């Protein structure tokens, strides 16, 4: 077995595999390589075959255009996950997680889906494990501007990436930090920080960088541009659906609630009703950057 260590969101993740040359070819992971010796928040080991199974699936996530995932608990109290890149495609990988998600074993079932499986195993395990450590995996596109990170939230297809592009085109000095799956962490001093990650959706943007969060903006398609600051509970409710979660597991639900409460009370959150035009980006930037 060979090891690779990645530093993601300030946490060390260790990957063990017989096939490290494959990992080293994954350009999304290499910026996050670390030579630190631990402690590791997460140990992920690739094995030949995951043999344990759940009794019955607890959750089946099946939506056209999205990975197909089923989750359940095994008789020994572990979490068993099965995944395919899309509904109706064959299973590409399986993963078995210790109850606290600190130890993960996974197998690649369909070698042609090696990248999908490795990335998804890492992404899921990281989100589940780190929720209890004030670390949130957001579904978001993030722009860096004047040393701060601005996170655009919204359902898939509402135009998060489009809004990022509008900032890049219309507001000088902007840069993309991540286009799909950044990590947000509440530091011990209470500061809310956003990190680039190896996961960025369809956009190749893998930056091992951290920035203080400037604001969260939920994008809503509308016939005109309008922005509104959200009060506490509304801010919490705006962030809630954008975080990767598995709330039936109490330690995860508890961790997410504490972290989201801290974020909602510390950082400004906005609703942006908008068109996909330059004025929307300017209105948003003018309102949120102070």
């Amino acid at each position: 077995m060979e090891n690779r260590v990645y530093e993601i969101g300030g946490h060390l993740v260790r990957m063990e595999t017989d096939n490290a040359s494959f990992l080293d070819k994954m350009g999304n992971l290499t910026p996050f390589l670390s030579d630190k010796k631990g402690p590791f928040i997460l140990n992920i080991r690739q094995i030949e075959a995951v043999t344990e199974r759940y009794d019955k699936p607890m959750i089946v996530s099946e939506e056209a255009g999205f990975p197909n995932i089923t989750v359940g608990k095994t008789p020994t109290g572990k979490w068993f996950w099965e995944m395919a890149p899309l509904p109706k495609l064959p299973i590409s990988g399986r993963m078995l997680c210790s109850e606290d998600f600190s130890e993960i074993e996974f197998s690649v079932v369909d070698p042609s889906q090696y990248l999908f499986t490795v990335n998804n195993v890492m992404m899921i395990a990281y989100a589940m494990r780190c929720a209890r450590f004030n670390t949130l995996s957001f579904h978001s596109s993030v722009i860096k501007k004047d040393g701060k990170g601005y996170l655009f939230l919204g359902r898939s297809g509402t135009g998060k990436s489009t809004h990022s592009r509008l900032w890049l085109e219309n507001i000088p000095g902007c840069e993309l930090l991540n286009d799909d799956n950044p990590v947000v962490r509440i530091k011990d001093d209470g500061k809310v920080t956003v990190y680039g990650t190896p996961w960025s959706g369809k956009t190749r943007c893998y930056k091992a960088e951290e920035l203080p969060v400037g604001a969260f903006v939920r994008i809503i398609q509308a016939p005109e541009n309008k922005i509104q600051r959200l009060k506490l509970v509304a801010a919490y409710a705006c962030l809630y659906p954008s975080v990767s979660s598995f709330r039936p597991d109490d330690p995860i639900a508890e961790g997410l609630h504490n972290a989201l409460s801290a974020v909602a009370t510390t950082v400004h959150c906005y609703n942006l009703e908008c068109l996909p035009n330059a004025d929307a980006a300017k209105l948003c930037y003018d309102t949120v950057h102070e």
Partner: protein
Amino acid sequence: MKIKTGFKLRTIVGEHIITGEGVERVNFNKIITLNETAVYLWENLVGKEFTEDDVVKLLTDEYEVTEEVARKDVQNLLSKWEEAGLLDK
């Protein structure tokens, strides 16, 4: 009627909210806010089978309010909870 399973009462800086956390609430992405009175009722009703009269009694036992006013408030609250998908009738 009954409060559906899988909901959790939580607090953010003094504000009370209901979130859907159980397996059966996987697609429930709403946050419902409760005031102090609603929290008192929720805590006394969760996990139990109850009628409108039971809820009215809870209110009149705890607060100085006529049955008539209490019933109006209860009907209002229960219809909101039902609309939000919190109740099994």
